[in-house]
């Protein structure tokens, strides 16, 4: 009885090993199953998800106009102080003073891509971009000014 159990044990053990070996041999011989993506080489064919949260950007139209009113809703919504809105006062054609942004400073190094600033923005001035290659040599390069040089607020955005 002991001998039979002993042999059974060896047989079942060896069988389980052979099953595993067969599976790995399958992958060894089937190179179609390889899933490696050769990243920097496949940049051209890389498909990023439309909603991928890479960094916050402020879209500008062809007249260098954006939609930001400088209401600081995004600054308040941000959990880590990533966004700083620096405002100034512009003179409207009617001669009134109007609040506008001087700089919208964005610290990419602090951002957790939580999307709260985008949902908080009442005028859809900022959105998430799909870029993801953010590495730079100096931390200060990660601090960005989102509005372009000399840009204005779009007409009709309040």
């Amino acid at each position, binding site marked *: 009885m002991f001998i039979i159990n002993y042999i059974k044990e060896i047989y*079942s*053990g060896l069988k*389980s*090993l052979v*099953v*595993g070996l*067969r*599976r*790995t041999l399958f992958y060894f011989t089937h190179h179609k199953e390889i*899933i490696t993506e050769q990243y920097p080489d496949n940049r051209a064919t890389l498909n990023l*998800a*439309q*909603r*991928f*949260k890479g960094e916050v950007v402020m879209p500008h139209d062809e007249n260098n106009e954006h939609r930001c009113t400088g209401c600081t809703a995004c600054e308040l*919504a*941000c*959990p880590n102080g990533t966004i700083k809105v620096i405002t100034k006062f512009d003179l409207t054609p009617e001669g009134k003073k109007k609040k506008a942004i001087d700089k919208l400073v964005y610290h990419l190094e602090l951002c*957790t*891509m*939580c*999307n*709260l600033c985008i*949902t908080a923005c009442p005028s859809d001035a900022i959105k*998430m971009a799909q870029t993801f290659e953010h590495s730079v040599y100096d931390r200060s390069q990660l601090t960005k000014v989102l509005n372009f040089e000399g840009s204005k607020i779009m007409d009709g955005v309040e």
Partner: protein
Amino acid sequence: MVEELSRTEEGNIIINVGPQHPATHGVLHLVITLHGETIQKVEPHLGYIHRSIEKMCESLTYRQFIYVTSRMDYLSSHINNHACALCVEKGMQIEVPERAQVIRVLMDELTRIASHELWWGAMAMDLGAFTPFFHAFREREVINEIMEDTCGARLTMNYILPGGVLEDLHPSFQKKVKDFIVLYKRKIAEYDEMVTGNIIFQNRMKNVGVLSAADAISFGCSGPTLRGSGVSCDVRKIYPYEIYNKLEFNEALETAGDSFARYMIRIREMNESIRIIEQLIDNIPEGEFQAKTKAVLKLPKGEFYQRVETARGEFGIYIVSEGGTTPYRIKFRSPGFSNLSALDHMARGGKIGDLVAMMGSLDLVIPDIDR
């Protein structure tokens, strides 16, 4: 460690496992006392990745603090976020639309599968089989892509808001999830071939790190660790939240209490998660994905506790509110912290190789323990 300290009087030697060690999956530091190869004592030293999230949350508003919790148990970040959102909703009595509930549960279960996939690969790698790690990542990658499509991120999804979810499901979501289910069912058999059935693996796992039911309860273990000892503790079943009471699924239970029982529970949990997803994927109700909430959330004065079942066990969040926009005190009850406290009890008398198997079967995520 200084030479004098490294040797105890009984001729035992003291070894530092970690903070940088291949088996601790992070910066866990265990000081183990060895007699030959046999473990006499395991003493965890924590805090290498302690960020004091509890203190941090005290200065964040109820919308903001959810995103910090993703950084605790990063493998089930969505479920952590879910717990926070549920707790805030409970306090403010926000009615969440049914569509949002279904979406949240779907995402929870996908996260659970992704987390268990990674654990499965890491578990096999701890025991010296490197191949399963890569195979597990293949399936996990598919889930990550589904997440990326809908949530816009792969690991820390930041998809939940109090009152619903951030965005509606991506149009391709249903098709991709169905494809994943087909793929998963084909590949899970391979998992059994490569790891579960393997005689070496079974011998390494069986009767290793045995935790009796009474001990497991006393140590406050939860999730697969407690269920492996035969105690029913699935929060989804016992204290159902969202729509879990309407769903059909079994709670995986094993009675052996050893590492292999915990392993089998996780494998079966993946199958149950697939079952839940199958029930929901064709029945996502139409409607709003977000309830209307006020611009500034204020929790009424009082104390709120919410627990959910993450991939590692029972995650609890305890909010003490003074009625302001920020919580007065937040406590996260993380499953890993309690599970880790049982490690010393389990490991005594085992070999170093057993310690690795036990840590693997506890599925420790260090930021979750340190918080």
